[in-house]
């Protein structure tokens, strides 16, 4: 089954066209790299998939279920089973690391008795085990991004959207986070859509690369292989 199915999706902002009749099918378990110059519509495409932006026309289906048709949103964002890692993390500034994760666990119906164990597990996995009570303002860029990754997967999503997650990080941290993302993809068999304007650094892990220009798909290439 396809995880994502876009048919003729167009998005407009006033007179400007952000996406023009985009057709895209992404099979389950794929790691798709979405590349292109700034302003070409990469983030808009992610937001349409997440239900955060309404298309002007077209159909969006997720795992076989209709998510939106034209301007009609059929499935609210919170019902789509999506995790998203935003550029810069977008951590909630008033909640500490533990509460960030507990909020997600609460929303997705995880029994309260399991929260402590699950929070510890997630923080352990992103290598922030002693950071339970730390506030976002006290974290470095890399730490904040790893906490945001833990938050994105806390609800056990089937689809993970990454919006330029490596942007603000230095080279060493980029490498470490990429390995984490790859590990996640392999372990959970998640479908990953990874937006970046620097495709080279992530291309080793991607199964497919889609290139956008001026709101249109101009290239769609299957990757030769994935680095082990």
């Amino acid at each position: 089954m396809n995880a994502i199915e876009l048919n003729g999706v167009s998005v407009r902002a006033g007179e400007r066209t952000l996406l023009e009749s985009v057709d895209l099918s992404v099979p389950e378990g794929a790691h798709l790299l979405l590349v292109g110059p700034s302003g070409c519509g990469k983030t808009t495409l992610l937001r349409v998939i997440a239900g955060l932006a309404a298309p002007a026309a077209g159909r969006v289906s997720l795992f076989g279920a209709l998510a939106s048709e034209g301007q009609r949103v059929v499935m609210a964002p919170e019902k789509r089973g999506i995790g998203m890692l935003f550029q810069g993390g977008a951590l909630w500034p008033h909640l500490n690391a533990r509460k960030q994760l507990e909020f997600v666990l609460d929303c997705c119906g995880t029994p309260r008795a399991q929260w402590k164990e699950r929070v510890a597990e997630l923080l352990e996995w992103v290598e922030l085990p002693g950071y339970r009570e730390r506030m976002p303002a006290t974290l470095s860029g890399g730490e904040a991004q790893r906490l945001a990754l833990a938050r994105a997967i806390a609800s056990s999503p089937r689809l993970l959207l990454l919006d330029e997650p490596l942007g603000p990080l230095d080279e060493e941290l980029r490498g470490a986070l990429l390995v984490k993302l790859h590990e996640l993809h392999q372990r959970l068999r998640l479908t990953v859509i990874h937006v970046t304007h620097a495709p080279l650094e992530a291309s080793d892990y991607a199964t497919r690369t889609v290139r956008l220009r001026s709101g249109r798909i101009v290239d769609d290439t299957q990757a030769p292989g994935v680095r082990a």
Partner: protein
Amino acid sequence: MNRVLVALAIALFALAGLAPLVAMLPRIESADLGAMFAARNLELLGRTLLYGGGVALIAVALGLPFGFLVARTDMPLANLLRPLGIVPLLIPPMILAMVWTVLADIRGAPAAYAVSAISTFPIVALFSARAFERIDARREEAARLAGGWCAALRADLPLVLPSTACGACLAFVFTVNDYSIADYVSWLGQPKFSVYAAEIFANWRIESRPGLAVASAVPLIAITLGALVPALLLRRKGAMASLSGDFRQPTRFELGAWRWPAFTFCLALVAIGGLIPLARLFYEAGGAARGFELARVSRAFALAIERGREDLANSIVWSAAAATICAALALVLGHALERSRIGRALEALVVVPIGAPAVLLSVGVIVLWNHDWSARFYDEGGVVVLLLVGRFAAFAVLIATAATAALDPRLEESARLAGAGPVRTLARIVAPLLRPALVGGWIGAFVLALRELDVTMLTPAANRTAMFRIFNQVHFGRDDFVAAMALMLVFLVLLPGTLWSLFARRRLELLP
């Protein structure tokens, strides 16, 4: 955003702020429309516009430099003078009029202009100060490298002036809709100073011509809305231009030899607007010209507490209830205004109660609720709370809108993707982040409600407030009692903001 919640909030807002105005429209008769353009009406309207425009200009002349000096310079005691600069805005305008007409021995139009300018310059100062603080250091540094501090200031001004203009528009609206200053100044004797809001009041109360009262209010509403709409647009251009994530705080301008003259200017404004009036009230409470004694101050306060206890309690309870409803509306509507597609249209609707004269809102409430079936509500505090919500909810809503605009939408989007519905996202993510704005809206509504006189004059249930008691007693010449009551009211007005400043770590958001 949850549509049911937003619909409920809109319904409550409309019931309190719009329905009374709409209820008045059928009262207009064709003769009233003709009378609208009578020479006297037009003359009053012209005078009122001149009055509002003049006051707004003086407010800019005082408020812009004050805002700049306290927010962005190394002037001595800038951090202390900044909060003190808000005090004139919080003191009821009629109390300022009471003090300064005696102290400066001024009457008529000059008194009204001076008192209104003192009362409204803090609005311009607050807007200007916020805009000066939101200039990214790098922009300013680029200008400094090109031509020093003067060039930096020249580069800053175009970024600040939209906010200053927004403050000036609000100062204009406050002035043309105020009834209390002109009424007090005219009550003192010749020369009288009549304004348009007083005419609307007279048409209702003295002439008993409600249709004429409404018809004559229409031009004033049109003019104030004409000032408010640009104000809203300007604030989006200026102060609400949200801070980007990598914002760098600007450094303070060095005043050099001008530090102390600047300090004297700001101190003089704070003294004229706040310290001297409060000192004068204290002096009045102690007997004033009859011989000041501290024992008399105690007696005046004891008398004020004994006779005014019920009025003070009513003022506190009704204002707090109204402020709480305003804050709840602010969270839901303020957020919806910024985030929903119909936000801009809703915003135009929300400002209508600000644009309408308070007297008209009050008359509308009488028309709407003075019936047998609603007698219990009309005769008790419920109607007062509704009046105050109608009058002031818009301010709280606009403050929350401005704060929402500065909030990164991704914080809400990530909550939605985590599985939180719109209500949970609003309660658990948005509300805590908007807390300074919601508390600011609460305090703003509470303060404005406590010092409100215009809407309380016509509705019988609202006659039992501290401000109305002061207004009544002024006319009976009870100076010591009035001074003590006024001081207690000012204390209540200043209390919430002072407590927040002392105990909260984040600065209160008080601006729309």
